[in-house]
């Protein structure tokens, strides 16, 4: 039985464990129908031209973990941003771990999707926001919607800001031979609210894991949301990360994606601007080796006038890795005075690495400034020579230049400890000691 059939037939078993009378269940039923009709995307679809899921879908993933697993804090401490205090929403094999988590209901709600979906007090919020930004058409998103039950739920009311950043971490213990996870996150920042979130998926063994995650973010007027995705998973992990962001007037949403690990990562990052004077930032650093494959698929849909968007993706590709960037900017007819920028720079450091990039503009308004730039190249030989002539070995010199290449994406990271952590990850990934503390 292939994975699609398995998922579709598991839906009935899934229904036994959820409240089928809840309005959300109608959404799930619709979603599974869509997935059943569409199935997993193939390379024949334009959006999946450069990324094939075939090798992943051959694995016989278990859809529900058989048992609850526990972890001790010291085992996984290094995956947390432990230098600073944070709220934590931790899942082990898809099941919430209250032992490792730190949630709150003090003025803001930082808790679980499962409780938001079952407790009546959250119903008004769920009715308004759940599945309102996510696609009802894209097959992997609807697959997640069909099985949506657990994940992070964050609600920041008007004029509030949580005292500390929120970490959402998914651990896969590897106690199952192969596991499929489908976390569903809902994040709402009301007027003038502020929020910082760090999301991470981590497998603790080399057993294959397939994560198909959907995150919906709603930013109301003047809200500011910083979202950091740290993707440094084990080499057998596949991550399909679908993020849908709906913004209202004057809100600011920044999403940073750091992709270093994993076998196959696909990021579908979608911004919808529903108001004026909105700012959206999408930035990413991708450093790959071995046979890794990362596909960044972004969409910024400018639907109202006077908004801005900035995209900056840097990629360094070694060994047999493949990088894909597919960025799309749509400017509607009424979205005059839009400023939309998109940049994608890539460095190939191996003969067998591949980069496919497709930056697209679809513009229907005339009074706009839209541009995109995209480069594929190598490190500057002159710069390398300069550093070497000053006694820096070639390997370190290469590291320094690559670090410099990726650095302007890091500049906008507003959590110093996270920035430090990412710097370390970059140095490790590049296999160099930079000689100074970053």
């Amino acid at each position, binding site marked *: 039985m292939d994975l699609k059939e398995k998922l579709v037939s598991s839906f009935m078993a899934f229904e036994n464990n959820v409240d089928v009378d809840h309005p959300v269940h109608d959404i799930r039923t619709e979603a599974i129908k869509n997935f059943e009709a569409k199935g997993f995307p193939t390379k024949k679809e*334009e959006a999946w031209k450069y990324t094939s899921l075939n090798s992943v879908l051959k694995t016989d993933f278990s859809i529900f973990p058989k048992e609850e697993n526990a972890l001790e804090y010291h085992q996984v401490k290094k995956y947390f941003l432990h230098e600073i205090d944070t709220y934590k929403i931790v899942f082990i094999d898809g099941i919430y771990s209250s032992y490792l988590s730190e949630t709150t209901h003090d003025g803001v709600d930082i808790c679980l999707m499962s409780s938001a979906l079952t407790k009546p007090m959250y119903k008004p919020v769920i009715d308004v926001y759940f599945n309102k930004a996510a696609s009802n058409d894209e097959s992997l998103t609807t697959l997640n919607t069909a099985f949506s039950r657990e994940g992070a739920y964050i609600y920041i009311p008007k004029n509030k800001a949580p005292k500390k950043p929120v970490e959402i971490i998914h651990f896969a213990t590897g106690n199952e031979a192969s596991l499929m996870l489908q976390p569903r996150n809902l994040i709402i920042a009301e007027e003038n609210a502020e929020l910082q979130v760090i999301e991470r998926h981590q497998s603790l063994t080399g057993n294959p894991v397939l994560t198909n995650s959907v995150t919906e973010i709603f930013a109301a007027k003047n809200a500011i949301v910083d979202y950091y995705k740290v993707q440094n998973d084990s080499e057998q992990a596949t991550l399909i990360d679908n993020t849908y962001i709906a913004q209202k007037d004057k809100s600011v949403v920044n999403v940073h994606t750091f992709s270093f690990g994993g076998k196959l990562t696909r990021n579908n990052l979608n911004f919808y601007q529903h108001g004026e004077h909105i700012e959206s930032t999408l930035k990413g650093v991708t450093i790959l080796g071995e046979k890794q494959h990362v596909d960044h698929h972004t969409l910024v849909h400018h639907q109202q006038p006077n908004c801005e968007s900035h995209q900056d993706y840097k990629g360094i590709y070694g060994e047999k890795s493949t990088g894909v960037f597919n960025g799309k900017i749509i400017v509607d*007819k009424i979205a*005059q005075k839009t400023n939309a920028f998109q940049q994608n720079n*890539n460095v*190939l*450091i*191996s*003969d*067998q*690495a*591949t*980069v*496919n*990039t*497709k*930056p*697209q*503009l*679809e*513009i*229907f*308004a*005339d*009074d*706009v*400034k*839209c*541009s*995109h*730039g*995209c*480069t*594929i*190249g*190598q490190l500057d030989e002159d710069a390398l020579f300069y550093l070497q002539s000053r006694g820096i070995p070639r390997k370190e010199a290469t590291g320094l230049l690559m670090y410099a290449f990726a650095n302007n994406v890091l500049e906008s990271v507003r959590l110093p400890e996270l920035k430090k952590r990412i710097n370390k990850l970059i140095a490790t990934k590049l296999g160099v000691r930079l000689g100074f503390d970053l």
Partner: protein
Amino acid sequence: MAYTEEELKKELETKEYEYGFYTDIESDTFPKGLNEEVIIALSKKKEEPDWMTQWRLEAYRGWKEMIEPEWANIHYKKPDFQDISYYSAPNKKPKYNSLDEVDPELLNTFKRLGISIDEQKKLAGVAVDIVMDSVSVATTFKKTLAEKGIIFCSISEAIQEHPELVKKYIGTVVPPKDNFYAALNSAVFSDGSFCYIPKGVKCPMELSTYFRINQAGTGQFERTLVIADEGSYVSYLEGCTAPSRDENQLHAAVVELIALDDAEIKYSTVQNWFPGDKEGKGGVYNFVTKRGLCERNAKISWTQVETGSAITWKYPSCILKGDNSIGEFYSIAVTNNFQQADTGTKMIHLGKNTRSTIISKGISAGKSQNSYRGLVQVNSRAENARNFSQCDSLLMGNECGAHTFPYIEAKNKTAQIEHEATTSKIGEDQIFYCNQRGIDTEKAIALIVNGFSKEVLNKLPMEFAVEAQKLLEISLEGSVG
């Protein structure tokens, strides 16, 4: 007088197609429809050898299995391929030895288009192979070319007289089953041009062919084959204007360029077919496959000025097969009213040290949609490949659209690829600056548009630049100074 962009826009919309007239020449036309018999009859009519007939039939069988592509960013009513007559030729045969013998009405048509054969013969030194509805009716300067060993004739003539060359090269760059329209063309191509430049010969003059569509309900399927042998050079010009029609006319041409070692081909196009009226009615459907193959140290340069056609679907490409070969693409695409253009290029880097340059300028006005779609592919053995692409779009009015779909694929670490694209309108401050210096708004817009397209216009051969300007004027009257 304050001349605003709105006024310009209005003027553009109301600007009628100047060259819309129709010449009545008796023609010898096939009944509508397409099947194997039609192809055999067509082939027989043209007295083609058996291998050509078989080649056409093979393409037709391939075409029958194919589906019309839908991936392009264009919307139109699909043509009914059974409602087209696949052959039509001006009746006055045999061919003429001098211009005096040519049907005066035909000559008059060219006069109204501003093409004086005599004048061009004398002043510009251009040999004109006029294609009117498929069959070549006038060829000039043939003698001069023949002295150098250059073969420049219609493709039907080439099939008769140089079958070895045609057989060797036809379909090698654009295979008969390459795509839907190329397959259709391979099956039913009526005529076109053939050009062969022998080893080491620099063609002394610009070669040009004027394609015209004249007969109602006739699809035109041109086939062009240009071969530049080792170390040779040729500059080839192609220009088009078409009479007004209510019915959509289909045009599916195939152009193949072959540049052998150290050869250079410069291929320039000015396309100004009937774009449809301002309600979007009528207009030519232009589905063209153009592709060039570069051997070692060879260079192919495409320059195009696209102002006409209701639908344009065109991607002149270069296959940079040989080491050190160079591909260039310079394009201006202007769309107005309801025109839709989906155009761009493909640069396939296979050889070492290959270089390519893409400069694409899109201007959209009215309710038109203008898309750039391109591919830059560097394969794993293409060491030190270099590409630079620039796609700029200019929007006039808020009902048009400009789109960019570049595909960039690199499989070699020594590749250096740059791509940049911008979309903007004519800045208020730019116009203000000009006004301030005593240049009125109309002239200012002209100046800016001219500057915007200069990079491409400069690439056109001198002899052609005048005509290009003339054709641009029709689409963007008052904008080009």
